[in-house]
């Protein structure tokens, strides 16, 4: 007699898997990686390699020896965390600091909560903020683009957002703008900033690829960018001397990287379309508040971490639209 497998339906599956999704995101990051290597050369290569290798190694070691579970270090998730961490660091940061950042990202950000799927905060951002607080000097020196062979010895300068923040203390926006790279340079990435955040264009290409592959939906990135556009637009219209124009805000700092890659992290973002919109609007508003009224030139990292914390609450109260209204049966 034949022996058949008996299991409940469904009996068909998409063939989609966690590694396929993770590597899909990684592929979408390749344009931004290429631009950064082009502008920051060997520094970018060292920082990225160390970050990725450390994230994978720490995930393996923690799972193998501390959690005593089957390591999942090759599922693409640790690689992605390492890559995203490298993308939000300056390319002249000493390699041992990168390793500490990777340990904070994977160890504190992810594994203390139980590993993939359980963490509340985006691991890469946890790593970045950990470094930002621990090594404020190293984390705010930004190499000028075009120095291929310089690593820690690269000539540094201020980011556009930094110039704006400092300048506004004494000058008007109109007087600061000539010191800032042109919008074309900001778009292609010829500017100072974290390794992977410089090219808005490359990141937007990555976003389109992820949307095409249905890895992410439009909800989070477009509501964040839209909120920033509207909020800074209102401020700019109210007083163009005190507030930079919306295009400047969209193209500078970590906004694109944050909106497209950090805020869309599956684990730490809401589950429903309406929840994602609420989350995106919140991140947009807090980002602008920090940038314009806060002490730091850039606020997107804190905004995302704050709303990561709100995600469980959003999931609890923002439900999908159920099919059919309720009826009472007699």
């Amino acid at each position: 007699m034949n022996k058949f497998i008996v299991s409940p339906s469904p009996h068909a599956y998409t063939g989609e898997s966690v590694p396929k999704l993770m590597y899909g995101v990684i592929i979408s990051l390749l344009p931004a990686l290429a631009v950064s290597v082009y502008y920051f050369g060997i520094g970018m290569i060292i920082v990225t390699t160390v970050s990725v290798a450390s994230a994978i190694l720490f995930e393996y070691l923690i799972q193998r020896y501390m959690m005593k579970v089957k390591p999942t270090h090759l599922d693409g998730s640790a690689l992605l965390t390492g890559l995203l961490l490298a993308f939000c660091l300056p390319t002249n940061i000493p390699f041992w600091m990168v390793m500490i950042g990777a340990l904070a990202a994977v160890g504190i950000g992810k594994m203390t909560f139980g590993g993939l799927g359980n963490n509340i905060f985006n691991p890469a951002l946890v790593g970045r903020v950990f470094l930002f607080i621990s090594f404020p000097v190293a984390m705010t020196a930004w190499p000028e683009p075009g120095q291929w062979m310089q690593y820690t010895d690269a000539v540094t300068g201020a980011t556009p957002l930094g110039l704006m923040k400092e300048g506004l203390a004494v000058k008007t926006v109109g007087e600061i703008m000539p010191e800032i790279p042109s919008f074309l340079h900001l778009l292609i990435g010829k500017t100072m900033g974290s390794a992977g955040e410089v090219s808005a264009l490359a990141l937007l290409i990555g976003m389109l690829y992820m949307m095409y592959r249905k890895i992410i939906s439009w909800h989070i990135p477009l509501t964040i960018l839209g909120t920033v556009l509207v909020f800074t637009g209102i401020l700019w219209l109210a007083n163009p001397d005190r507030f930079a124009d919306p295009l400047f805000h969209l193209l500078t700092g970590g906004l694109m990287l944050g909106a497209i890659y950090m805020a869309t992290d599956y684990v730490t973002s809401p589950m429903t379309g309406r929840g994602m919109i609420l989350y995106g609007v919140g991140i947009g508003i807090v980002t602008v508040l920090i940038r314009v009224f806060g002490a730091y030139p850039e606020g997107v990292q804190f905004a995302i971490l704050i709303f990561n914390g709100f995600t469980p609450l959003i999931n609890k109260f923002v439900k999908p639209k159920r099919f059919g209204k309720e009826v009472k049966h007699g």
Partner: protein
Amino acid sequence: MSLKTFSRGGVHPPEYKLSAGKTIVELPPPEVAVIPLSQHLGVPAKVLVNRGDQVKVGQMIAQAAGFVSTNIHSSVSGKVLKVDLFMDSSGYRKMAVQIQVEGDQWLETIDRSDDLVRNSVLPAEDIRKKILEAGIVGMGGATFPSHVKLTVPQGKTAEYLIINGVECEPYLTADHSLMMERTEELFSGIQLMMKGLGVEKAIIGIENNKPDAIEKMKQVVQGSSVTVQGLKVKYPQGGEKQLVQALLKREVPSGGLPIDVGVVVFNVGTALAVYDAVMKNRPLIDRVVTVTGKSLEKPSNFIVRIGTPISSLVEKAGGVPDDTAKVINGGPMMGKALPTLDIPIVKGSSGILLINKNEARRREVKPCIRCSKCVTVCPMGLEPYLLMTLSEKALYERMEPEKVMDCIECGSCSYTCPSSRPLLDYIRMGKAEVGKIMRARKAV
């Protein structure tokens, strides 16, 4: 022609309609038929025959044991061997009548000719009575007794009859082949149902991957108040709530039935059974079954007597391929896996699907990464990830307000999960537990 579809969720699994366009082949009666007494949703029928009795084709062998129950007729002629427990497609052993087939003697009252009978002078009441007598159930797989659906409850009115020709399950082509080969009879059956139900309007919904069926049905309904609507291919469009919403933009309320929005839905196979019952005096004793699978030699559409063992259908389609690891009664999304082939075809068997080794096993379950794909694809607007967690932790009382009872068990969530999580398994378990809680509350 504009294509319609339902608005929320849905997936698009590969179609694999291997047996599409294959002419329906009639199989001879089996040597021994096993006819279960419970082939429908509701109370099992009450057996009327004893061991040793001689029966004819079409003879009633079990009677409806209540309003939500149906008559069962012998699909073969011969001698009753025994009335005993036999395994059916649920995998459980249930009461059935086993008949040793001798010849093919039909009741004289049955019109066996192929002549098309078009006009019926029967009043609505008699149409419903004939449907009740003939033991007709929903042929799409839900097997709900048809006479119940045709009896509109007090205080409700039926405005539309919807005929489900969607066949959104991958692989299955039984309904498609019926629409192609029995178009006229089908149309006549639809008109009888409209009369029985007292509605003026009927819509036949067909997915766009069957353009030939859409074309053919359109020709035959010309000049009548029956319309044909093409639908964008999307699973689970054949779910009646989804189909009603796709065609009429009306949402069946939570916990309600299509009649709550003035609609009654029947499968195309049911319409044909109604034609046979009313016009030909022929009870429901056979049906079209798709036998299919990627490794199967001859994927086919067969017309077979109820009670024929599944093994003989597979034999006729080229035999069981060596790599077969799973046999499904129905389609891959909602069908039931069978433990053996020694199980009879029943009124609700729309297809037999053989799945090979590579595709039969489930993949390793990984942690939920909260990608929200299950929420996106759920056609009922539920949160499968949350329902699974609640069910895993036995927090059943929290599942009811999360609308777990609205789940139609289409399997889109499990199908789409990148972590291969058994979402629907846990949701089903939760539904069973919540059902108990609700019944206990009602009893107090």
